[in-house]
């Protein structure tokens, strides 16, 4: 079951904040966040495990609400380098299941 990401796209000015959401209809074991720039490989940002703490990567942080079966990615004081497509990948059930990626959220940061 593919997770649903929202919004589909967002445009920010440098220094603004954004939130990207990832929701699943099934119980989740972990949520993985990746960023992919156009024509490049997806790059790992962070993993949130069931029962784990909120994670952080530079000025990007994320939370995982197990009860709501959703994760949110928080981008603070955005930089031009944050532009790209953000994907969440969900691992379901008791774990060790293939990641199912959402369709992505396209983020554009402009000067």
């Amino acid at each position: 079951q593919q997770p649903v990401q929202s919004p589909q796209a967002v445009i920010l000015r440098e220094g603004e904040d954004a939130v990207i959401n990832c929701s699943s209809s099934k119980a989740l074991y972990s949520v993985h966040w990746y960023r992919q720039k156009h024509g490049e490989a997806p790059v790992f940002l962070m993993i949130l495990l069931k029962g784990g703490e909120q994670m952080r990567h530079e000025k990007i942080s994320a939370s995982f609400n197990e009860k709501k079966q959703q994760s949110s990615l928080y981008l603070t004081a955005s930089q031009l380098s944050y532009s790209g497509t953000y994907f969440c990948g969900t691992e379901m059930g008791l774990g060790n299941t293939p990641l199912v990626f959402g369709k992505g959220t396209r983020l554009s940061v402009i000067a």
Partner: protein
Amino acid sequence: EAGVVQSPRYKIIEKKQPVAFWCNPISGHNTLYWYLQNLGQGPELLIRYENEEAVDDSQLPKDRFSAERLKGVDSTLKIQPAELGDSAVYLCASSLGADYSNEQFFGPGTRLTVL
């Protein structure tokens, strides 16, 4: 440290032709993945290897797709014969750990165009 290497980066073929993609994972990574990524979509798993063994190939269309990972290092993904709908980016990834709760390192992908 060298990243995941894939070749070729681009491939254009006519339908019904065979095609092969090659991947060299990060040294020491025992787990290797092949993903398919369509335009505007996230990666979709095709197959996962633990060393030489394919431990999850349920998503691989076995009528035309095949993969191998001889000696547990490099891997090759083959399509024979290719169809128009196979046009996509084929990503290879590797990880240190033996399950999905690990950071995956992706290669740049091979963009396949089937005419």
